[in-house]
């Protein structure tokens, strides 16, 4: 009986911890040749870039990633992006890809380049 509980417990914890995102592998999946310019600093710079007025990353996520954001069109509250305050962030490859695509289209009306994507993720990881 006890063993069964232990097994269940082990199964639960392993599903939580087994897959942390391998960022190098993720970046590789976007391009085999990520330029050295793709950095957290570049991501920070792009954070406020708004080719479409009022639609930068910061428009919804704010400048302080540890704070709750608010969707610029709908006012829907958005949980903090910072993995330090919100440990669920950047834990699933599927979600990272989904949101990069959706939000780049929101802000730039196109998908982001691998350089931009790496810069954003590096910026979010370090904030």
């Amino acid at each position, binding site marked *: 009986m006890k063993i069964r509980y232990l097994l269940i417990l082990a199964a639960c914890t392993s599903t939580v911890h087994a897959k942390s995102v391998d960022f190098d592998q993720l970046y590789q999946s976007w391009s085999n040749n990520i330029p050295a310019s793709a950095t957290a600093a570049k991501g920070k710079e792009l954070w406020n870039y708004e080719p479409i007025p009022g639609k930068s990353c910061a428009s919804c996520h704010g400048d302080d990633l540890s704070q709750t954001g608010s*969707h610029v*069109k*709908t*006012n*829907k509250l958005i949980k903090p992006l910072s993995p330090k305050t919100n440990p669920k962030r950047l834990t699933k490859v599927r979600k990272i890809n989904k949101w990069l695509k*959706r939000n780049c*289209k*929101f802000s730039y009306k196109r998908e982001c380049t691998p350089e931009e994507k790496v810069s954003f993720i590096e910026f979010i990881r370090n904030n």
Partner: protein
Amino acid sequence: MFRKYLTTILFFSMSFLALQSQSDSSLWRYFGGEGGRGVATAADNVLYQEECGACHFAYQPGLLPARSWDRMMSKTELSDHFGEDIAFDDQKIASDLYNYLTVNAADNSSYKRSRKITRSLGANEAPLRVTDTPYIYRKHREIPDRLVSQPKVGSIANCEACHKSADRGSFDDDNVKIPGYGRWDDD
């Protein structure tokens, strides 16, 4: 003796079944008070909350008829969802959402508000905005613009700004609190 019991049991099971057939979610609907008066909750659908509720209030399926959801989930509409391209890469997710939305749509629900929304629409009307349904439009018509356009609200589409129990599908006057104004009496 046995016959007497049988009649009683039959009577209760018949009335139970009759009530069940009227309901969306069995006993909860019957005993849930406001549950049956608003629209069926969407809070229990994780996929819907994650996919749609991340950017905006997760409008309950019971706020629009199935033909509206059918239109909304079409490829054309998804690539221009109120100005945004939100096309799904994962077709399984898209079809799961489609099924959830249409099965639980207003015209398939017996909840009070869902029925009123359905009744207010022409048989071929398929609005994409909840606020374009005559019933919902009528319900909000008298609210002054300044209360709607204030930053904490923004638009009538921001249900939760004033309907404090909107996430549970309850839109009763009692749970309305307009920022900077307070309770709103709909009479």
